[in-house]
């Protein structure tokens, strides 16, 4: 359990760093973003491995919100969000969940509505700065799970990080087609 707690912490920290690197002078650093993405990927793999062993150890565990859906699907450059391979993995993740995740449905719904209706300040500002319409991309993973429910604001930040990464990457490319979220980090 300690391993999975550490893995979770590492993922949260990586996301925080990726988020704050957006506002850094000099623009996004590809090398740093790549290293953070790799760390997140290995932390996620270890987390899920720990979850799987926990699940097999305690099969009577009540299924709660699936684990770390939002986080895990985003920066994994090698895995596609839309790829069918990820779905079975998601299912297994759904079945066994950490007892630490206890996001109440109300808080979640509130958070989701907040995200859709009124994006968090910095995120909206940077969207405006980039001159793109603030339309919610339809390829964002459905927000079924939250990593930590301690502060719902953190979850807003997470989702807006991902959409901003997408916008950043789409800016660099000429094609206006939506880009899968997991490419966002690498493309910047």
């Amino acid at each position: 359990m300690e391993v999975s707690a550490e893995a979770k912490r590492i993922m949260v920290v990586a996301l925080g760093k990726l988020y704050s690197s957006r506002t850094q002078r000099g623009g996004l650093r590809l090398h740093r973003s790549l290293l953070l993405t790799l760390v997140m990927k290995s932390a996620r793999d270890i987390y899920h491995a720990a979850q799987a062993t926990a699940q097999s150890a305690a099969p009577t565990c009540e299924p709660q919100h699936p684990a770390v859906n939002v986080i895990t699907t985003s920066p994994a450059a090698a895995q596609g969000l839309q790829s069918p391979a990820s779905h079975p993995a998601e299912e297994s993740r759904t079945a066994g969940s950490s007892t630490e995740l206890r996001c109440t449905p109300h808080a979640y719904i509130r958070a989701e509505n907040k995200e859709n209706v009124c994006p968090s300040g910095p995120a909206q500002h940077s969207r405006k700065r980039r001159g793109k319409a603030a339309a919610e991309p339809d390829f964002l993973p459905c927000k079924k799970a939250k990593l930590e429910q301690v502060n719902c604001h953190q979850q807003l930040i997470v989702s807006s990080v991902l959409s901003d990464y997408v916008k950043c990457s789409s800016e660099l490319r000429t094609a206006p087609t939506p880009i899968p979220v997991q490419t966002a980090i690498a493309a910047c």
Partner: protein
Amino acid sequence: MEEESDTRKINNSFLRDHNYATEADIISTVEFNSSGELLATGDKGGRVVVFQREQESKSQPQRRGEYNVYSTFQSHEPEFDYLKSLEIEEKINKIKWLPQQNAAYFLLSTNDKTVKLWKISERDKRPEGYNLKDEDGRIRDPSTITTLRVPVLQPMDLMVEATARRVFSNAHTYHINSISVNSDLQTFISTDDLRINLWNLEITDRSFNIVDIKPANMEELTEVITSAEFHPQECNTFAYSSSKGSIRLCDMRQAALCDKHCKYFEEPEDPSTRSFFSEIISSISDVKFSHSGRYLMTRDYLTVKVWDLQMENKPLETYQVHDYLRGKLCSLYENDCIFDKFECVWNGSDSVIMTGSYNNFFRMFDRNTKRDVTLEASRENSKPRAILKPRKVCVGGKRRKDEISVDSLDFSKKILHTTWHPHENIIAVAATNNLYIFQDKVN
């Protein structure tokens, strides 16, 4: 446009004086020139300061060739890329000197996007006695000119001027991490995260891309280029290091695009040391050829490795810089120190290698005697002509007197940039915004 640049200057100096008092003074690169007479430093504010060694004088033998400021100039200014809404930092990432070919000195300095060739020259005479102008430069009334005279060069106080002779721009999408001058003295390479471009020093509107590791699908990106350097003697050979801990040696004669390496240096990972952070700490932050051209040195987060160019499967020597940090990787990751890029440097005879660490410590490893020493660059310990005392970090439980425990190390004081005089035992060490120059003990 002029107004804009004025506003920017005001903003910069405001920031400099108030919130980020000394951030612009943080030294970001140091480099001796090929004779060791000059030492250049670049800082985060885009300035270059060049020091010159005093001529040794018999009357003051104790002032054994000290370095004094020779020239200061603003190399790069902050810029704004309007297309991408990105600010381009003025921080000088690297300085490389060109070998001296005439009375003037030339250096290349680069920020994230643009390389510039600077000429530093001395002026100690000025023409006086113009026929058509008076001493202030104003044109004289022709009716007052009654004699003919030719200007004569008169001595004046020495003035050192720096002028930008070439600007090599618009060739890099990603951030430039290194530049390297070829031994042919006609070309140089500039390297960013995914590409290496070859330039001719005379031509600024064109460069050749010789390495491109950008995948067609950016989703598949797994490694970036972290540094590149030309071989010191062979003008067709260069090496580049990657974030995955490998080094590739390339030969430009093979093909126009050197995506296929000639040699590939990589040490297999030790599975027993695998952790969350294995990828980060194996990323190479610096690669340097030895002066002889026979060896390569690489620096990753915890070690320095010396590679024999003839042996690709493992390094010749591995030196632990600060292995006591291995157990602290998680906190170093949280405070961002794990992303620090340390440089490494050879001494003139390739017998000693040096690299920096935290707490203003720097380490030297003697390759022959296998002895190593840890020294500290700090004001308290560095009175002029004082001998540096070796330092020791205590890893076990019992801390001896004069030892410092790992938990007391100051991770905000890091020595990332060091350089060694090409012939003598003189080193320059950059500790945040201070430059320390150390010499061998005078007998």
